[in-house]
């Protein structure tokens, strides 16, 4: 009996060890809400990197000496951009004496999950990054920033009216943009020249189709469109924007007054379908499921001559094409008025963030011209209108943004359909009528 008791005690001791490790580790966590009792992490493992312990220790010592130095969790560090870490470093430095800012790396593939679980647990990050076009998902959970901007004209002047409109849902300013992003088309200059296709400054769908026919006749694929990374419906979305623009109804469309079952939508769908039906899309029948990596590979190998790309990644893609020069190609418009699909990456503050006013101040600093300039200098497209861009390629890209038009705030169901099912339904499962039916159904349900 004694041995057994000893053993059980040993067991409980082991369990206690694990749990106390948990408790100790909890104290070394970077979660600011527990920083009040932060003790120097003696047993913390080395991988809890130095910055974690210093920020925990810093906030602890700061709260002991100078009183409250609030900690702000900023889920907006984009490490894939060379400017990303630079911008967050500048942010932390700029507000070093006011706040402890914890800049967290964005996990693009899991963003929705991270945000929802954070908000649900009532311990969210103070600022989250999210694409403006999908903000309908979180519109009711985000702080309305309009009052703050109205009270601070200097802040408001950072942005253009178009940008603010794109971030407004139901009259509430739910987020603020930190970078512009839109779809561009990249082209293989040498191959296009060889076939004799000249790229105009703007062209219609008909002219575009003619050029594609020429390329196809030469035995190559003219165009492609990746179906992952939320790009699947780019062609349709661009098309419907240009249809609305041609009719002078762009604002109506942005406001959501043009239904997805309308004639405008139908026109856009037909234009899209034509490209697939004519066999202009790589790799032919598999175009409905082609992934971005496959498309990119084909483009680099010279099998496809024109490929859509996100503006922020355009320069990198262009630089990576070692065998040929990459040129910018304007999106074809369905009639004579051009309009392109734009999007912005934004930052929003959840309603249950711990320190909303502080978060707003952090936002203002991050979106100021000083920090936004870093973004521009690295070759990307800032949102702050007071920043000049110096890179000529990027300038050309931004020139396209003149025709940038905003989409209505689609519901997540509609978005999901656009990105995952529209192309398949359009090309394989029934065509334009099926898509119209489905879109309208989703529109009414949302």
């Amino acid at each position: 009996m004694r041995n057994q008791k000893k053993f059980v005690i040993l067991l409980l001791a082991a369990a206690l060890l694990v749990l106390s490790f948990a408790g100790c580790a909890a104290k070394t966590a970077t979660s600011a809400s527990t920083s009040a009792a932060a003790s120097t992490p003696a047993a913390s493992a080395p991988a809890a990197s130095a910055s974690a312990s210093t920020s925990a220790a810093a906030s602890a010592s700061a709260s002991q000496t100078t009183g409250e130095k609030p900690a702000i969790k900023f889920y907006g560090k984009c490490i894939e951009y060379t400017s990303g870490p630079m911008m967050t470093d500048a942010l932390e430095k700029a507000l070093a004496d006011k706040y402890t800012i914890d800049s967290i790396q964005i996990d693009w593939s899991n963003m929705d999950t991270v945000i929802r679980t954070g908000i649900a647990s009532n311990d969210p990050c103070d600022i989250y990054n999210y694409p403006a076009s999908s903000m309908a998902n979180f519109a009711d959970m985000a702080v309305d920033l309009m009052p703050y901007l109205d009270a601070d004209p200097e802040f408001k002047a950072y942005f253009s009216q178009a940008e603010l409109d794109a971030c407004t849902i139901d009259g509430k300013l739910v987020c603020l943009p930190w970078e512009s992003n839109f779809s561009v088309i990249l082209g293989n200059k040498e191959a296009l020249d060889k076939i004799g296709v000249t790229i105009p400054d703007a062209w219609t769908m008909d002219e575009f189709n003619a050029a594609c026919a020429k390329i196809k006749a030469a035995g190559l694929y003219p165009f492609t469109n990746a179906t992952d990374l939320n790009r699947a419906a780019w062609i349709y979305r661009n098309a419907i924007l240009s249809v609305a623009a041609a009719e002078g109804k762009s604002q109506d469309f942005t406001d959501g007054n043009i239904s997805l079952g309308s004639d405008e939508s139908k026109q856009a769908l037909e234009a899209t379908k034509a490209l697939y039906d004519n066999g202009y899309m790589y790799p032919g029948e598999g175009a409905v499921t082609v992934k971005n990596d496959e498309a990119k590979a084909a483009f680099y190998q010279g099998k496809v001559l024109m490929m859509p790309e996100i503006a922020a990644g355009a320069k990198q893609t262009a630089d990576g094409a070692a065998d040929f020069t990459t040129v910018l190609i304007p999106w074809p418009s369905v009639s004579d008025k051009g309009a392109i699909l734009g999007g912005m990456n934004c930052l929003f503050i959840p309603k249950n963030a711990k320190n909303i006013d502080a978060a707003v101040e952090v936002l203002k600093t991050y979106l100021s011209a000083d920090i936004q300039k870093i973004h521009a200098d690295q070759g990307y497209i800032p949102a702050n209108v007071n920043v000049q861009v110096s890179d000529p390629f990027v300038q050309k890209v931004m020139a396209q943004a003149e025709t940038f038009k905003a989409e209505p705030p689609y519901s997540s169901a509609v978005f999901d359909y656009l990105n995952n099912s529209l192309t398949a339904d359009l090309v394989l499962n029934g065509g334009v009528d099926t898509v119209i039916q489905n879109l309208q159904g989703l529109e009414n349900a949302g």
Partner: protein
Amino acid sequence: MKIKQRTMRTGVAYLIPAVLFVLLFSVIPFFWNFVLSFQKWDGFGSPAAAGFRNYLSVLQNPLTRRAFGNSVLYAFASTFGGVVLGLLFAVLILRLSQKEGGIFRLILYSPAMLPTAVVGIMFVFFFNPEMGLLNSFLRLVGLGGLQHIWLQERGTAMACIIFVAIWKCTGSVMMLTFAALQGVPRSLYESSYLDGASFWQQMKSIGFPLIKPMILLATINTLGAQFKSYDLIFTMTQGGPADLTATVPIVMKKTAFIYGSFGSAAAMGVLFTVVVAISILLIRRLLRGETYEY
């Protein structure tokens, strides 16, 4: 009978720590999820009661019905393939020497070690209709007519994903059954060997029956894992095209985290658990064997 009492007390004492852990992170979330399935919640604010509405909408939605069907097909097909092949490998390696066997075991287990996301996209390239290895190979050997758009066509999309799943899960089955076969003392084969039985006959009459519990375990484990599989299918097709290859985990994740409908997702989870539980009990019945002591 004092011994029986004593052992029982020891047994319970040994059991308690594990049960505590399981209670905390499996039982509690399970019941939480069950309660959630009768509510309507988007992650913000308080949940609202929703009765059986979630269950009704799940059962009536053709997409979720298709997802359930796909899940069952995927799980059973890939488990069957994985178990048969895994067992085959284990038996084959058994015949080889230790060192050789070890190398083969390592290599054949390596698919299980690669991150699923990398595996997924790799096979996307493999199945690419234009420059993928498969179609290129078919063209090379003159079987160009057999080319397909593997991940898009109705008939082949699911099959290709199942193929990759088998590729990945065979290793685990091999490891488990090999370990079990190792535990069977050689002496047990002696008599049948002396009677002139061939290797395969020995396996059939002695090896397999003795390790049946382990085969059952491997099958159940693989089946459970395949039902839960998310990353592989998602990286290869995202559940598409147009939800053709959508399985329940994919639909659940989307419903919960993209649409913000946690109640519906919870209801799906409960229904799914029922399906999985039934499947496992079915397998248990099929592969019923006795535990031998040796």
